[in-house]
């Protein structure tokens, strides 16, 4: 056990803090999805141009070659400075990128990794299907080998930034024989290919965060398969492991900041009788509990980083972080509705630092569903960590 940062971690933190202090954009991220994507791309490109992109990515692919600890330091400092989150670049930076680093050919890495870091190409995910949600391995989007091409037919859903993405990490069924977990392949899909149709889906916060994607005889070069034909389940699991481990770190740190913003708001807001909300013991303790919870969440994430420093393969522990984090988000956002009081009716209500409290609250309903429902996370914890029998 050790709290002390190394000299190089300290130096990295100071340098990051100094750079962020003068480079974080003044204007907040737009609410509308396309404008938000453009904003995310601009920020990521600025990071790349100034040498801050891909903190823990290998140097040979344009990253800084530092440790996961420094990656977390980056998230902490950039959230502290209220810098933009990865946003549209999330899948590229936290899903597809790490998977390519681990399993792709040198050619694929050379082509894609710098483009992800420079935000030249946005990536999206093509995993879930209407009938393959929790049961992801039940996916039916078919890819038939035709010469040196895969011909893809089917439908994906819950794809973020599909409209803006150049590439997709696409799971397709390349064999229907035997166990359903075999016969899946992980493919780099170009989103501009003929035969792809995209339909945005609006969520309850009235924004189009997701899309459905339809594939009609879409022809993808067979060399775009990563990790081997019919081996996509293992590739995808590694990928999910990355997500459940540290990819949510930035969002977690941001949540801590939101709690502090709420405490501020509770000091500034008065109730009908003119008393500041923070003077209400009940509201104050709810806020204190959230403050404790986001602090402990940070420790849990450090725990994951500590494990990864010993065994560099994400284990099922990430499911505990995700289970706790997503429920905590919902608790914080619900409390926010109490703190902003009558503002909770106003979809466009803005709080401290221009936060979209109401839309954040509405969007939080998805958190215990997307990326594996809370039920699925509990199944994973019970089965893979505790070794309980399957139901």
């Amino acid at each position, binding site marked *: 056990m050790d709290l002390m940062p190394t000299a190089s971690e300290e130096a990295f933190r100071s340098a990051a803090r100094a750079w962020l202090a003068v480079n974080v954009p003044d204007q907040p991220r737009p609410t509308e999805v396309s404008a938000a994507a453009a904003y995310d791309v601009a920020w990521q490109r600025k990071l790349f141009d100034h040498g801050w992109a891909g903190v823990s990515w290998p140097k040979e692919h344009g990253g800084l070659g530092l440790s996961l600890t420094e990656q977390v330091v980056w998230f902490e400092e950039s959230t502290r400075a209220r810098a933009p989150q990865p946003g549209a670049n999330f899948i590229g930076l936290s899903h597809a990128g790490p998977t390519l680093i681990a399993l792709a050919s040198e050619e694929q890495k050379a082509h894609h990794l710098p483009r992800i870091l420079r935000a030249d190409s946005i990536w999206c995910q093509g995993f*879930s299907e209407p*009938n393959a*949600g*929790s*049961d992801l391995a*039940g996916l039916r989007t078919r890819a038939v080998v035709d010469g040196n091409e895969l011909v893809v037919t089917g439908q994906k*859903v*819950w794809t973020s930034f599909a409209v803006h993405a150049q590439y997709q990490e696409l799971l397709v069924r390349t064999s229907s024989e035997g166990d359903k977990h075999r016969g899946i392949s992980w493919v780099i899909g170009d989103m501009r290919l003929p035969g792809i149709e995209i339909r945005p*889906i*609006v*969520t*309850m916060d*009235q924004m189009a965060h*997701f899309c459905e994607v339809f594939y009609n005889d879409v022809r993808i070069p067979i060399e775009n398969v990563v990790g081997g034909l019919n081996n996509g389940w293992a590739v995808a699991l590694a990928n999910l492991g990355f997500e459940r481990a540290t990819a949510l770190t930035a969002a977690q740190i941001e949540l801590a900041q939101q709690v502090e913003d709420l405490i501020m708001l509770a000091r500034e807001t008065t109730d009908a009788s003119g008393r500041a909300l923070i003077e*209400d013991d*009940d*509201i104050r303790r709810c806020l204190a509990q959230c403050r404790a919870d986001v602090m402990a969440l940070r420790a849990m994430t450090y725990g994951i980083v500590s494990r990864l420093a010993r065994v560099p393969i994400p284990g099922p522990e990430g499911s505990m972080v995700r289970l706790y984090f997503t429920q905590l988000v*919902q608790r914080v956002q619900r409390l926010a*509705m*109490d703190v902003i*009081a*009558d503002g*909770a*009716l*106003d*979809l*466009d209500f803005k709080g401290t630092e221009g936060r979209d409290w*109401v839309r954040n*609250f*509405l969007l939080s*309903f*998805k958190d*215990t*569903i*997307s990326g594996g*429902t*809370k*039920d699925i996370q*509990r199944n994973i914890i019970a089965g893979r960590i505790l070794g309980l029998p399957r*139901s």
Partner: protein
Amino acid sequence: MDLLPNDDEMALTDVVRRYLSDRAPVTAAPPAPPTPEMWKEWGELGWFGLAAPLEFGGGGQGIAQETLVFRELGRVLLGGPLVATVVAAQVALAAGDQQLAVSIIAGERQVAFAHSGPSGITLIDGACASHCLEIGDHAAVLRSVDVAELVERPCADLSVTLHVGSPGPTVCEVALDHYDARSHALVLVSAALVGMAEATLEQSSSYAKVREQYGKPIGAYQAVSHRCADMATRADLAAMQTSLAGLSLDARTPDAAMQAVTAYLAALDAGVANAADNIQNHGGIGFTIEHPAYRYATRASVLSRLVVTKRAALDLLLPPV
């Protein structure tokens, strides 16, 4: 003591339910606010004065019977300022303004809830309202309002409108001691929330029987089925307490106001938690605007701020010393 509907009351429920399934079934897209014509029709159906005396166009029944109607209205998330209009008619009657009461009961006017704040009033669901109703700690105040002079804001529930600005002059004011507008409003809100809790339970329960994952209906997994069992328990608790509160108000029992607040707390919990669980049970589709599930969550959020908040309700039940 009988908390379940008798034959007449079941017939009342049936009529309303059949009308709504025909004319205003719940939709995924938020419907437009009700037109004056629709409102008039609902007035003719007796929805705005079921508990008002027959001589003013009312139904001569009780608040308990109103709760049965409002359960149905809640079930399909019917739009418009229904609760405020019903209560406003009674405020007008209690204040002696029979003409206003009669026109409200007849469906000729909409009355919306208003909350005063530093920047004037916020009118909830008052797109077509001629009056607004504000229930304070001690009295209910009915004011005229000109919506055209107010500024519209987008509401978290897109089937509800929000307007901000200045109200017109006070039309009448009635002390809660005289007519307990707050309790009446709370019980009708509770009834709507009960209907919503029941509707979301039915949606989850039906979906759990047909949606399959891993080769089984998801209702065969306790993660889902036990969530549904909790939804059923909350809905039943809230339904029984709401009926009891309605009956208590009608009988003017000494504990009627406490019963009304308790109904609201139970129904708010059921409405809010069942809406969230229903979204969870539906998975991805549940949080999109392509399925009605989300509308129960946004509506519950509006109802939680229509009369009093949960904390304020708890403070009514055990006041600060």
